[in-house]
């Protein structure tokens, strides 16, 4: 449902921005006047939740959104205006960093998902659940319908926007300029999928979370439903996740889990998110026409689409290259990750239990009590309660949380490198942000291996001149980008049609020249973009990055939400890790299946509860120091002559790269 660049005409995009802006304005006004004064931290932590989920979503080459942060639940808890802001932030991050949804179509995507979705969800929830008391079925039914209707309203809007394109925008020969299919094809093609599967997922997610909240924090739902100004004064306690709520949550997680293969079936291509190259690719053409009422797409990609789709190519983008045949792989990933942290956590905890049980039986067999006691004593410094051996039994979730935490810490720790006196560190953060973002865009747009290689060489020179260890880049960025891109690009080597230059031993899969070239080119592009992005992060302190955004005219509210999201997703991850550690330290025997699942579900629930509680606490701490809804910040940067020189240098490099890069 994230409409890519090129599918809507510039005028449609303008209209959709025009439609969205009043709502953004209203939402900011409303949240500022009534809600945000109370809900900013809550909103921030909801965005932080989205942020964490989106970190799991990073390698999203496939077509679809995870919808891990449903519009429905956001609208019910935050109210429509708060939800618009929260989803807006989520979409903003998606479009900018993860290349999901276009830049020209950002207004439209916002309108469909954030605005229409929130309003529909909120209205239908109020209509049905209205003043229903805590524990009433109407709340759950209302939320389910709200989620279902919201996502379908969004899909309907998107399909209409797709469908009017060929009616309004044609070239001289009558061929469509942008999205090629008329309403009669676009609407059924999108709506059937959403009425069936997409809506169901949102329905389950919304109803599930509402059911959980209804049992544990009924005040939260009342506050949202009445759009009242009651502060959510919850004191979450770990013990609050009752047995029944836990069971219910697990049912929701289980159903979502079972739905994942459905997502796989529907994966081939998301309707309306084909890359321009797909139009000339026979296999993709067949798929497109099968999805579109057996109506073959135009032979040549629409001209306007070709032009617009080049505006913004995210370094890791699902719709850019024609040779990326891994859409289904991407869909599995997105289904797995997008279904949410809950699903992922339970899956992984279930998966980790087996090795531990085996290890423990061995331990008990071989060790006599005295030796066991001694070993526990020796390990006391490391873990006070657990017998030492268990120290190593770490689950996938813990390792993932750890990994993300380390990445976070690392990006914060970059301050040691960022504080050094080097070429990049001396540049004013604003200039650096503009210049390096520009170079990333240029890299993504380049279709010429030589140009990209030159950009990479320049980035390396800057690395050395800034005193940033190349080994840091290699371990933190190059390997990660290589592994990540490699996984996605590997299939393209075999699947892309063309001149066969060899075969994989044993398997006999053909390797084509075109596929290999495409893979190398893609890899180089990703590595270069990642290097530049890495340099930006490494050479700039995070607060300065945020301040640069602020100075460059991004609203203070948005920057505050971003910075607090960053700050508190860090804290939440640490909380999650501590919860796992605490559990590990108390665990003597191995857990049985149902217990394990209950723990997984209650962990997710408790984490959400803690998040909400934390949001409220932080809000109170802000109010206590005089915060009244509008954050004031101290911005002080000074652009010197050297900075202007660097800006010119950035522009020159970018200009040259564009000039040479177009000669594909």
């Amino acid at each position: 449902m994230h409409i890519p660049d090129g599918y809507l005409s510039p005028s449609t995009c303008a209209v959709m921005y025009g439609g969205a802006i009043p709502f953004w304005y209203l939402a900011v006004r409303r949240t500022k006047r009534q809600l945000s004064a109370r809900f900013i931290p809550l909103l921030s932590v909801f965005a932080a939740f989205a942020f964490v989920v989106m970190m799991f979503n990073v390698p999203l080459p496939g077509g679809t959104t995870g919808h891990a942060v449903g519009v429905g639940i956001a609208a019910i808890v935050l109210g429509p205006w708060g939800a618009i802001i929260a989803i807006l932030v989520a979409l903003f991050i998606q479009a900018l960093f993860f290349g999901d949804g276009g830049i020209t179509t950002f207004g439209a995507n916002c309108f469909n998902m954030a605005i229409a979705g929130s309003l529909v969800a909120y209205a239908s929830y109020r209509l049905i659940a209205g003043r229903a008391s805590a524990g009433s079925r109407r709340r759950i039914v209302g939320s389910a319908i709200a989620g279902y209707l919201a996502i379908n309203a969004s899909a309907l809007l998107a399909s209409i926007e797709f469908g009017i394109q060929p009616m309004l925008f044609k070239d001289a020969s009558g061929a469509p300029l942008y999205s090629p299919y008329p309403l009669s094809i676009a609407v059924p093609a999108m709506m059937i999928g959403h009425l069936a599967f997409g809506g169901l997922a949102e329905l389950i997610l919304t109803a599930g979370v509402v059911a959980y909240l209804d049992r544990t924090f009924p005040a939260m739902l009342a506050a949202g439903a009445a759009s009242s100004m009651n502060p959510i004064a919850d004191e979450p306690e770990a013990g609050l996740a009752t047995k029944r709520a836990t069971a219910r949550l697990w049912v929701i997680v289980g159903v979502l889990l079972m739905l994942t293969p459905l997502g796989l079936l529907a994966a081939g291509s998301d309707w309306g998110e084909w890359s321009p190259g797909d139009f000339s690719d026979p296999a993709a053409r067949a798929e497109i026409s099968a999805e579109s009422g057996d109506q073959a797409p135009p032979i040549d990609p629409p001209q306007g689409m070709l032009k617009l789709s080049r505006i913004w190519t995210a370094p890791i983008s699902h719709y850019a290259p024609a040779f990326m045949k891994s859409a289904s792989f991407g869909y599995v990933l997105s289904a797995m990750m997008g279904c949410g942290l809950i699903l992922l956590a339970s899956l992984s905890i279930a998966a980790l239990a087996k090795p531990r049980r085996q290890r423990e039986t061995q331990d008990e067999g071989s060790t006599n009590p005295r030796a066991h006691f001694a070993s526990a004593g020796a390990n006391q410094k490391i873990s006070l309660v657990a017998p030492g051996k268990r120290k190593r039994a770490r689950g996938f979730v813990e390792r993932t949380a750890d990994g993300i935490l380390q990445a976070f810490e690392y990006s914060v720790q970059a301050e040691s490198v960022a504080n050094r006196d080097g070429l990049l560190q001396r540049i004013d953060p604003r200039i650096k942000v503009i210049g390096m973002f520009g170079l990333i865009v240029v890299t993504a747009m380049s279709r010429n291996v030589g140009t990209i290689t030159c950009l990479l060489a320049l980035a390396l020179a800057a690395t050395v001149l800034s005193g940033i260890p190349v080994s840091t880049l290699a371990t933190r960025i190059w390997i990660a980008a290589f592994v990540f891109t490699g996984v996605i690009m590997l299939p393209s080597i075999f699947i892309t049609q063309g001149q066969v230059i060899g075969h994989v031993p044993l398997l006999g899969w053909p390797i084509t020249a075109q596929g290999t070239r495409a893979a190398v080119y893609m890899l180089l592009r990703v590595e270069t973009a990642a290097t530049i992005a890495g340099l930006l992060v490494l050479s700039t302190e995070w607060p300065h990055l945020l301040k640069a955004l602020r100075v460059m005219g991004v609203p203070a509210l948005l920057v505050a939400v971003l910075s607090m999201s960053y700050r508190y997703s860090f804290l939440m991850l640490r909380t999650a890790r501590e919860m796992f550690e605490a559990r590990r330290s108390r665990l003597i025997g191995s857990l049985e299946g149902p217990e394990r699942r209950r723990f997984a579900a209650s962990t997710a629930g408790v984490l959400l509860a803690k998040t909400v509680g934390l949001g409220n606490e932080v809000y109170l701490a802000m109010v206590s120091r005089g915060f009244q809804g509008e954050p004031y910040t101290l911005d002080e940067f000074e652009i010197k002559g050297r900075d202007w020189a660097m800006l010119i240098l950035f522009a020159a490099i970018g200009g040259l790269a564009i000039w040479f890069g177009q000669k594909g």
Partner: protein
Amino acid sequence: MGLPATVSEPVFEVQEVEYRYHGVSALDRLSLSVGTGQRIAILGANGSGKSTLLRLLDGLCFAERGEVLAFGQRLTEEVLEDREFAIGFRRRVGLVFQDPDVQLFCSTVFDEVAFGPLQLGWPKPEIRRRVSEALDLMEIAHLKTRAPHRLSGGEKKRVALASVLVLDPDILLLDEPIAALDPKSQGKVIDFLIGWGNGAKTILTATHDLDIIEDIADHCYVLQAGRLVSDGPPAALLADQALLEQTSLIHAHRHVHSGQVHTHPHQHHRHEH
């Protein structure tokens, strides 16, 4: 239970206040009074309502029954919506939360300390000067470009204190100021509280740590399950073993002396020198 000892005009008056969390009573018909320049300890076990009381006094939550008066003005949501009053009130009353992670939400220590003054609309040169002073006062000037969440527990606490003290409040509310700090950091905080304000400032400290109350308070209120059960000067309270045991502030401590186990009430008193 004696009359509330007011030294001069009261800054806070709490009258018959009731407050509940989800139907569980946190404060139950509580009345007390705080005079200008008093140093008060609010004693009570976990869950006795200390934090709730501080939040009521700081105008962060509001009583369901009864009223809280600050400087003679009744504290209500409506009153604090008024920007003029809110700015004055927030300047004069500062609350240091128990968990510094809650209080430190900015991206650098400097920004953190500057947050309060910025919200109150002080002129920027003034803010810079006052922030530097507060950082020096807490001996954390060297940390000012660091991210607050990457500091040690003791450093975080000092940043939290600086972020409140930068406003030069007349009344300082502290929620468990030395909980979870190492002895040296505890000592620093206590030393500061002893020296701060030269008697002109009002300090309310919520704690269950009997070691420190003689240093930081000249009057104590003892809470149990949201009710005021006793009040008086620290020395008198510390002498009342029955009361302290009843309110879970001390516990019978069993330990071993030369092979013999014996039990006696235990209160981690600081040594007299």
